[in-house]
């Protein structure tokens, strides 16, 4: 297992390097001069040239790449090219807790909804409850998360005044401020994943419930709840855990639209604003972090398989 983990970790780092390199060169191929845009109000060609030289953006792309790569190896992600030229690591690290908070809460909401819904749907196949869960799943998948977010704001914030409409409060300000700011965006982001996971649990459970060993358990007279939770559900989890792993990664990096709606500066917004503004160092740093999240989430899921199903082993 240790050998497997080491091999996968090395592979993960190589994947991160490949993604970061691809993004580095693709960014510079995108039209639009960030320095000219930044200094549009100044309108001085000499000032633009001077700033480009200062930031090293006048050098050949491969030279810029080597310099950036060497800095990254030293743990330095560089500085934003805008405004106060803040360290990229600071920008990303300030955004990360907000994204972690939102993703965690959204994931919990998704699981809390999906697991009972999927189980009930599988056990009571073709019943009214099953149909309700199916409708919920389709609605959850069909509704854009930003639309759901806006609706939640209108209902719970603007009309009922139960919850704040926008913003983020760190946990250090207390549990309720943190939770009250995050619950609406977490529902908006988590609902589509709840729908996907619920459907996955249903289909996986149906397959397992038709297995011979479940028939034997039934024949032996075991209690139904025990059969479902102890014998069937763990075996149905393997494909579900795969989806959950992908969900976590997507939640960490892909909630940009909901972050915009709720004015939360998370990783998604850092990435999108960096791309729109051609803030190369910020995009490169954020992409590195996002790719790390994806590959290591994938690795964690693979390790989790061995916990769920002890028969699974990776060592040759």
């Amino acid at each position, binding site marked *: 297992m240790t050998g497997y983990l080491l091999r996968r970790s090395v592979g993960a780092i190589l994947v991160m390097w490949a993604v970061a390199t691809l993004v580095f060169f693709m960014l510079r191929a995108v039209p639009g001069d960030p320095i000219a845009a930044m200094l549009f109000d*100044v309108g001085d060609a000499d000032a633009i040239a001077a700033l480009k030289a200062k930031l090293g953006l006048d050098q050949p792309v491969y030279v810029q790449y080597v310099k950036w790569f060497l800095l990254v190896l030293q743990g330095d992600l560089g500085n934003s090219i805008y405004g106060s030229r803040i360290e990229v690591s600071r920008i990303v690290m300030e955004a990360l807790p*907000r994204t972690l908070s939102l993703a965690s809460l959204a994931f919990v909401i998704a699981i809390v909804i999906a697991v009972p819904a999927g189980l009930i749907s599988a056990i009571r196949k073709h019943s009214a409850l099953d149909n309700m869960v199916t409708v919920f799943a389709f609605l959850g998948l069909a509704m854009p998360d930003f639309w759901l977010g806006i609706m939640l*704001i209108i209902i719970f914030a603007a009309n009922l005044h139960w919850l704040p409409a926008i913003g983020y409060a760190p946990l250090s300000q207390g549990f309720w401020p943190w939770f009250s700011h995050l619950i609406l965006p977490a529902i908006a982001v988590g609902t589509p994943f709840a729908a996907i996971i619920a459907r996955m649990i249903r289909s996986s459970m149906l397959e397992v419930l038709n297995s011979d060993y479940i028939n034997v358990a039934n024949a032996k007279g075991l209690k139904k709840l025990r059969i479902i939770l102890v014998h069937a559900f763990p075996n149905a989890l393997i494909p579900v855990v795969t989806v959950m792993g992908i969900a976590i990664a997507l939640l960490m990096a892909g909630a940009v639209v909901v972050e*915009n709606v709720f*004015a939360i500066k998370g990783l998604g917004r850092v990435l999108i*604003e960096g791309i729109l503004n051609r803030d190369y160092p910020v995009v490169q740093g954020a992409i590195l972090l996002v790719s790390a999240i994806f590959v290591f989430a994938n690795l964690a899921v693979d390790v989790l398989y061995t916990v769920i199903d002890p028969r699974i082993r990776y060592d040759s």
Partner: protein
Amino acid sequence: MSTKKYYTDGHIRRQMKADHDHALDFDPGDPLVGLHRSDLAGPQLERRTVLRLLAASGALTAVHLLLPGVAPDAHAAAGGTLKAGWAGVGEFRTLDPAQINQVLLFQIASNVLSGLTHIDPQLVARGDLAIDWTASDNGTEYVFNLREGVTFHNGDAFTADDVIYTFIRSRNPENSIHSRVVANVADIEKLSDHKIKLKLKAPQASLLVKTLERASGRAMTIVSRGAIEKMGTAQYGLTPVGTGPFRVTDHSLGQLITLEKFDKYYDPERPKLDKVTIQPIIDAEPLAAAIEAGDIDIIGGNPIAAELIDRFEANSDLNVSIITGPGFQSVWMNPHRDPFKVADFNKPVAELMKEKGFKVRLAIAKAIDRDRYIERAQFGRGTPAYGSINPAMGFFFDESLAETSNQRFDVEEARKLLADAGHPNGEGIPPLKILHTPSARREVQVIKDILKRNLNIDIVLDPKDFPVLIDAFDKMDWDLTRLGSGGDFDPDDGIVDWMQTASKFNGRNRDKEKFPFGFFSDNEVDALINQQAVTAEPKKRRELVRKLNKITSDKVASAFIFHPADILVYRKSVNFPAQSRIPGLVDLDRVTIS
């Protein structure tokens, strides 16, 4: 020590009548309209001087005659926390005035930092860190008496050395993107700890309103040397230290800025609030929900989406304050491309009118129904524009241009011009691409509809992110572009920045062999702009500004569309006094919460 004035109703009426009579008591033939040069010196223009200038320009209204501080504010009380949302922005990248390039940023910085002067709601310069000043007869030397007893937020005393430090920092392009703003300042000499002499290379009319002003110029917004040296420029940009009424106590990147009352501000009556929090809110609907829910009390930042204003006006919990804004927006036509090609603008208008390309330009400008555009694109809010000088400039604005401009709306005339140019009913004109930012899509759609309806010209929308748009605009790689200017407090902001051959926005990255000039070039306009820039006498300067504004309008430097309104939305619990209602700014030092 402050002096409070208390007024009875009768006193108010008598005072206003006296001010009105005094304002109108001048000989129209007198170029100084009965004023002396000393009247035009600092610390601020006296109230009666301002009223006289407004009367001389025909811009005096009853609002101007209202006595300051008289408007009752019965339930206002000092203290409390104001929650602000800044529209259309994702984060505040810097508050270092040397790096600020957006109006929404200097709106915040104006509450934290000070300048030698600060504009008032009539865009007239008043003393800020300067108590008063005198100017030499030739207008190249100014002596400023600085306010004593002022401290920075970090406890450092403010002295003449800080003014000199700010100047040295600003004139170095490595430190400041606004070094051009102080290019005309030859030197600043320290006469004493609270007295400086400022020497100019040439007289400069916009010195007080632009170069030395707290917010708009940014080059001479006074910074703390001690703070910069201690925290570094990167951190200073996030938590700047100044002498303003508020100090920055926290800045969570992209999330929230917290300002707290500076107890040692030079005016003990200000600020009124204890705390202000400002958060960036990029999307329109969450912004609306936030103010309706009471999560925020006031909206600043970028202009609020026009489609929200009706909704806010219908909300009984909200105040919507609309005044004329300091800017203009245009549709620019590339003079190097058919069908509006103009090889040389240096001809009388009558000569230009014989050219096909100019006829098409003028036809397009005349076909744009500005009232319809404002009604449909801006939901009825804005002022039709025929030049770059905006109504907020008051004294310099020429209301008659709407009637006298060559560009005034006339569909029949526009169609006739197009037909004379060989394109009856738009025949032969290929679809024209119009560059615009994604956020301006709806407005450009209205332009497209108007030109199709009135001239049968097809317009193709070409949305581009700002960096890409600017790249193309600078290189003259476009047919039409929808672009304009904001935060224009002095005529120089509109005409120097846009209308000169060498203006900073005028095709600066073009191939100069292929394109001898950018989007416009006229020698007479260039000369008039240079002349007005060094003309300190207001009425004379106004004549020059109005003359060149008319030329740029008649020669269709661009199809001027409208002057945006400055709209401030805040909850009724917020008291935003008229004294603070400066176009383009959100000064919070006199704001209270009921």
